[in-house]
């Protein structure tokens, strides 16, 4: 609310000889809350450092979210296929093994294209992938009987919650600085862990050990390794990005359509909403942006490293 003391509380006519100054330590004939009418809120600034988004760059940034949602749908479609025995577990196993080899190759090419990177540690990567492979193979029988006593409904609810957590917390940032290649930080550890444990829980509903093993292995590829690779594509070009997004959505739609055409339609709607409608809404909503800044704000120290 605007204080209207300027009109009411003027018992003393301002002496033209005494210039009003915005200091309280000096005696002057004005009341304490006096302010000249022309200088009221003159220091107010609206949206001072605001750069409006434009539509197409936003669409490309939203591709990261679309890719993530697409991988979740691909995983769910594969799971339903394995459960209804329309997908062969051995085929899935070979597909995921070859995908990982291919992905590692691409990763290494991208890695070596940058001269500042250290040479990749192949033996370590091989050792840890072998370790995960063998440990999953050993744990598969245990995982299969893990939730035998729990009803399926609670499993669906649990995995839905975990996938939601995974999608919300995932690393959707797409400003990949080229210098930060060397230390690939797992910033959103919780997201990946939620996806893995959700897929473990889902895998425990499958009928035989081999499908449990191949599904968990596929989940490891999809939710732990693929995001790392996907993140690197940002440094290449937006065309690659669009291609990856298109292929992921196409694969998920192809996998889902034989299961249920209604769900496929819904997924198409979700993809379009995330990729095209949501950026448009954001661009439209920018007209309501009203950020008020002024000398009353807390001062922000300017450091040199900016």
């Amino acid at each position: 609310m605007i204080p209207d003391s300027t009109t009411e509380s003027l018992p003393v006519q301002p002496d033209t000889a005494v210039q009003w100054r915005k200091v309280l330590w000096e005696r002057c004939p004005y009341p304490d809350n006096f302010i000249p009418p022309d200088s009221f809120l003159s220091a107010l600034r609206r949206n001072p450092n605001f750069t409006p988004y434009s539509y197409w760059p936003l669409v490309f940034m939203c591709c990261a979210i679309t890719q993530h949602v697409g991988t979740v749908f691909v995983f769910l479609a594969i799971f339903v296929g394995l459960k209804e025995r329309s997908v062969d577990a051995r085929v899935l196993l070979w597909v995921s093994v070859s995908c990982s080899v291919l992905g590692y190759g691409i990763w290494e090419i991208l890695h070596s294209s940058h001269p500042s990177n250290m040479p990749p540690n192949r033996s370590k990567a091989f050792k840890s992938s072998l370790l995960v492979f063998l440990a999953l193979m050993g744990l598969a029988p245990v995982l299969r009987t893990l939730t035998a006593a729990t009803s399926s409904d609670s499993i669906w609810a649990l995995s839905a919650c975990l996938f939601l957590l995974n999608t919300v917390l995932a690393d959707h940032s797409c400003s990949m600085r080229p210098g930060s290649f060397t230390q690939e930080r797992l910033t959103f550890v919780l997201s990946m862990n939620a996806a893995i444990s959700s897929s473990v829980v889902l895998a425990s509903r499958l009928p035989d050990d081999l499908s449990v093993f191949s599904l968990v292995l596929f989940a490891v590829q999809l939710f732990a390794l693929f995001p790392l690779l996907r993140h690197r594509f940002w440094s290449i070009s937006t065309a690659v990005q669009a291609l990856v997004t298109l292929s992921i959505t196409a694969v998920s739609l192809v996998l889902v359509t034989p299961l249920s055409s209604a769900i496929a339609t819904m997924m198409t709607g979700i993809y379009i909403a995330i990729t095209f409608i949501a950026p448009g809404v954001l661009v439209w909503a920018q007209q309501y942006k009203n950020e008020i800044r002024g000398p009353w704000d807390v001062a922000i120290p300017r450091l040199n490293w900016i």
Partner: protein
Amino acid sequence: MLYQITQWRYHQPDEHVALSSIAYNRHYNSIWVILNDLIIGLAFRQFLCQNRGVLNAIVADGLESTLAVRIQRMLLWLDSWPAGLKLNTELSRFYSHGFIGLITRWTKLLHHGLSLLPAISFVVETASLLGMTMTLSLSLDLISVLTAHLHACHFISSTIYRHVLLLIGSLWNLFRGKRYNILRNRTDPWDYDVDQMLLGTILFTLAAHLFPTILVYYTLFALVRLGIIVLYASCETLLAFMNHFPLFALMLRSKDHQRLPGDTYLQVNHTALGCTVTVESHPLPYAVVFAQYAGLWRRLARHYHPIRLGKRLLQGQVLDTFPRASTGPPLDY
């Protein structure tokens, strides 16, 4: 007491009267308590001898059904998806079969032991001649021998429970991308490798789903152990109180309280010639007579405190009985 008797011989007439009074009180209190113990023991022996047949029959019938059959039935009940508990079928079967096998082994041993029952009852009766406390101690030992299988089951299940709890705690840290820093005694963020994360997450999911099964079996044996501990605690409290009852001091105090002085005061009597001052003594207050009891009770209460027992129960530590380091130094007044 032997020490006191030997000291009595070297008693010198010019010794300090307070010290000799303490020695006197101690000596006679020991004799009184022992005699009383013997008398109660004799009476108890009489009771045992008169009802020997009935008692033997009760023990022979009840022992196996309470200590083995009931527990085995409980384990079988837990194995058959009871009360909507989401137990892991395979782990639950492993647990219940293992424990049933262990209890069956013990039952075989018990059958050998039951053939010795007349001899055991004879030993208990004879031990009653040495005093009631002897009988109590013997029955405490018998309880701990007879419930050895339950103790073993509790030990196994609590060990597993404790380790799984520890595992879940550290894997939960890994799940959140943190690690316990032992040098600074806090949890710090930590960058794990991808394979560590994957294996840790899968193991965490596994442990979290198997935990209810482990918890249920642990709870069963912890409750059984708790029941035995309560029995033990009451017997031990009784034993400790019988061993240290200040009978002689109480008797002296009721007979002539001047013989058990607490402290002295000057009594001033006004007479016609002026006044006479006499030294009188306060009798020793009851709080001092029973001071040792209070300390003993405090130690027992601290050991068997419900909150302490509950905490140990939750942490999966083995519930132990009162430490057998004898119940304190002899009483002195």
